[in-house]
């Protein structure tokens, strides 16, 4: 407990977290500070490319781990299963309609890549190493939750869109999956010689870019909160704080069962405990248009994301260390 608190304290005072807080403050104080959409998208492309590439190079370095396939399968299973748990909790804790609950559940089964990226740098700063293929696991966890959610919605009488070829393609080939998997493979193929060529671009400035990106996330989250006071009932809010813990517990179980390294277990918890706010919202607009976007956006970006950043990540790292030690 002592350790968790001191880790959390150390994490709190990093430039990353403080940048997120600055963004939140600016948005809530209604400052006109904004980051252009194109710049925000550019930074997210940079982060996805860099994290994918580094993961691929790490796998190239250490050889293909036998556990890689098992970890991918575990990720897919978690992504399929967690929405059912989330849906159940939402039904118990809130009065959201079945459609809204299903949409929210999709977000929690999927993952937040920025939470993952931040988790990676906390894991590194704690002196732990982790499996390079965890980025591939992250990519694998993006989409399955959407399918579970559509099933949940239609089972409850919601009007989910039919899964036609276009929808499948949009979900499976969405930008972040393609970029993450693609750069992972490029890193895998080019290995250290490839890394030597672009290291100065993707390694050294990485944390600085992450700072500015989290500033933007803070701005977006803050603006979302200002507009969504109505939907945030205590039950919904409580779900946003409880669900990441539940998800992380699933991640812990999976990571331990797989025999991942301490850092790997921590990242599995980070993934399972995080909620998507980029890929899944767009899919929900297409597939579950009746669901209210401000519910799921505010929950995942306004509640769970900051919770994970400030409390979740350091806690999962501490737990993984305690379990592994």
């Amino acid at each position, binding site marked *: 407990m002592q350790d968790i608190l001191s880790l959390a304290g150390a994490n709190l005072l990093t430039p990353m977290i403080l940048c997120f807080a600055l963004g939140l403050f600016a948005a809530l104080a209604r400052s006109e500070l904004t980051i252009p959409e194109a710049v925000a998208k550019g930074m997210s492309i940079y982060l996805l490319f860099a994290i994918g590439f580094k993961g691929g190079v790490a796998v190239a370095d250490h050889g293909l781990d036998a556990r890689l396939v098992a970890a991918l399968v575990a990720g897919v299973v978690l992504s399929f299963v967690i929405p059912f748990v989330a849906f159940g909790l939402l039904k118990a804790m809130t009065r959201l309609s079945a459609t809204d609950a299903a949409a929210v559940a999709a977000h929690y089964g999927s993952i937040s890549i920025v939470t993952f990226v931040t988790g990676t740098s906390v894991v590194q700063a704690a002196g732990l190493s982790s499996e390079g293929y965890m980025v591939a696991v992250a990519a694998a966890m993006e989409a399955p939750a959407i399918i579970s959610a559509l099933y949940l919605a239609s089972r409850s009488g919601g009007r989910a869109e039919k899964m036609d070829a276009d929808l499948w393609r*949009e979900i499976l080939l969405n930008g972040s999956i393609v970029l993450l998997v693609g750069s992972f493979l490029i890193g895998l193929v080019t290995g250290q010689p490839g890394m030597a060529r672009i290291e100065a671009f993707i390694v050294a400035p990485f944390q600085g870019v992450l700072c500015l990106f989290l500033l933007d996330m803070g701005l977006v989250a803050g603006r979302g909160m200002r507009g*969504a006071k109505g939907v945030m009932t205590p039950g919904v809010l409580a779900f946003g704080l409880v669900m990441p813990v539940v998800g992380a517990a699933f991640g812990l179980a999976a990571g331990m069962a797989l025999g991942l390294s301490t850092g790997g277990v921590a990242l599995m918890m980070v993934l399972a405990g995080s909620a998507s*706010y*980029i890929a899944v919202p767009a899919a929900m607009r*297409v597939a579950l248009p009746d669901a209210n976007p401000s519910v799921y956006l505010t929950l995942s970006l306004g509640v769970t994301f900051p919770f994970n950043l400030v409390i979740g990540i350091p806690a999962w790292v501490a737990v993984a260390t305690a379990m592994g030690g």
Partner: protein
Amino acid sequence: MQTHKAKRVEIIIEAPMESRLTQALEKAGVTGFSVLPVLGGSGRSGRWTREGQVGRSGMVAVVCLVRPEKLDGLLEAAFTVVERHIGVIGVTDAEVLRAERF
């Protein structure tokens, strides 16, 4: 100059639905349209802005100039896509040069 009657249809629709809408328009025989960005706005679902957004969020405006006789087909096609989605369809009378293009 010689102008010809036409209709200007403006459909403001969620960005993730854009490709479905334009496919439906093409199927309905609409030969041309332009997609304009929308920075933000307000409606029954509240205020939104594109600033700082990372995902495929927000809305776009699809503008079509069509011959009057094609209007009904267009509206039906558009409505099928927009129906359950956030969005607005507005039609104005217009005139165009070079009628053979529409």
